[in-house]
């Protein structure tokens, strides 16, 4: 697997496709912290949303760097299609961790926050960045390598899912009929809801309940995406 991740990393870097999403993410971050004395958790909520969008974009790029023949050869060289998928996710996670480190450390280094940063802030920021990055990777994968990946509308469809998942709260309040349908979309707001009050001192039962739902969604989502990928590649 290490060899394949190296192969993918070199191929992706040399394709130069990393430049647009990385640039957008960095510019977003620099603009976010252009002013000092900003609130801690709300700022991390914004950078988590940025990582969510950028990771969808990056994942769709990573899955589009090779042509069909190269993919076929990789299936044989890796002896398994699942290893191919996991290798691709490995590369996406590598960039997600880099982006996450930048998003969390940059404001601390620049002294942009209005108050002192506490371990709970760091814990919540790692949780939100990591989970939203994974949701982004899952959406990017769905619209790249499953039956939903029609060439014409895949980017538009991905954008639609991102928008709906980010506006979940408003939509479910105004159109109650959609409430159950919206459960299919990544529970982004369930993660961001706790990134509001900087005075938070400890996590409570509500947080744990939602975190369990988010964790379950991630696990089930991952299993479903793997199955959809294998079904498409039959």
């Amino acid at each position: 697997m290490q060899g394949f991740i190296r192969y993918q990393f070199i191929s992706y870097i040399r394709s130069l496709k990393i430049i647009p999403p990385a640039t957008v993410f960095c510019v977003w971050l620099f603009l976010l912290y252009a002013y000092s004395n900003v609130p801690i958790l709300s700022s991390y909520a914004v950078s988590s949303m940025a990582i969510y969008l950028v990771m969808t974009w990056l994942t769709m790029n990573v899955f589009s760097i090779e042509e069909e023949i190269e993919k076929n050869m990789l299936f044989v060289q890796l002896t398994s299609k699942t290893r191919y998928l996991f290798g691709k996710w490995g590369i996406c996670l590598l960039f997600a961790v880099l982006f996450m480190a930048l998003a969390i450390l940059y404001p601390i280094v620049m002294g942009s926050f209005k108050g002192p940063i506490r371990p709970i802030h760091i814990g919540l920021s790692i949780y939100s960045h990591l989970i939203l990055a994974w949701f982004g990777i899952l959406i990017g994968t769905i619209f790249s390598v499953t039956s939903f990946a029609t060439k014409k509308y895949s980017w538009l469809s991905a954008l639609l899912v991102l928008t709906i998942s980010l506006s979940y709260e408003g939509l479910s309040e105004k159109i109650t009929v959609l409430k159950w349908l919206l459960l299919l979309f990544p529970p982004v707001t369930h993660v961001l809801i706790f990134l509001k009050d900087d005075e938070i001192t400890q996590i409570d039962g509500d947080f744990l309940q939602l975190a369990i739902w988010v964790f379950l969604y991630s696990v089930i989502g991952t299993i479903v995406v793997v199955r959809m990928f294998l079904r498409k590649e039959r």
Partner: protein
Amino acid sequence: MKKSAFEVCNVTKEIGGKKILNNINFTCEDYTSVAIRGSNGSGKSTLLKILAGIYEPSSGEVKRGNRKVGYVTEHFPENLRFKVKEYLTLTSSFQGTSKQHIEEELLDYIEMFNLHPYVDTPLKKCSKGTKQKVGLIQAIMRKPDLLLLDEPLTGLDSSTQNELFDLLENLKKQATIIFTTHEEKLIENLADSVFYIESGEFVCSPKKRVVQKLIKVKFSDPAIIEKLNLNDITYEGNTAFISVDASGSDELLLVLLNKQCSIMEVREKR
């Protein structure tokens, strides 16, 4: 007795609602070489992809056990962003082989395929023939039990084709080889049996290639050879070149030796 390398049982493949392969059945023994022939679009490449595990059959089954597969595509990918040596080192490392071991082995193949001038050339800038050689090396370096080649002669010049024949002939001792081709030359040189496929179906049963031996023999009296009633024979002075089925060659050699003839050479006929 040779073991069955794999078994294809009632395999049907549909892509986009179109039936590409229909009820394909065949078995292949270990260390044999099989040619799959057929016109363009007959389903040869699809069958090869099913054997490689790239596609799965819509119905039916391919039993190949845990055999390691090497796969050579007809057209090597155009947009690989690696240099020749870098690509081969990376793809070989997928199996967890040490870098040092890979480099030692790679040197032999680079020598064999005359790739020295191109080792640091980006694959995008290589000729079709060079890319085809790289495609072959990546498959061989996997040390496959089953080597699948889709039109392997595409883009190779005649000297490289001959090198490939020799290489594949040697590989037959270590792996089962299945290839698709339109070229008679490859079938004559390599195939033990030939399958014909037309519109996704086997149109006739596999045809075993009859292996022939060429015996070069020196004689003192031409009557000795004439009495043997052999069909395929040519003369050069007091030397005869006799072609016989491999199965009967030992018996003939014994007869010739008993009649005081000198055996100069015995080889498989190509």
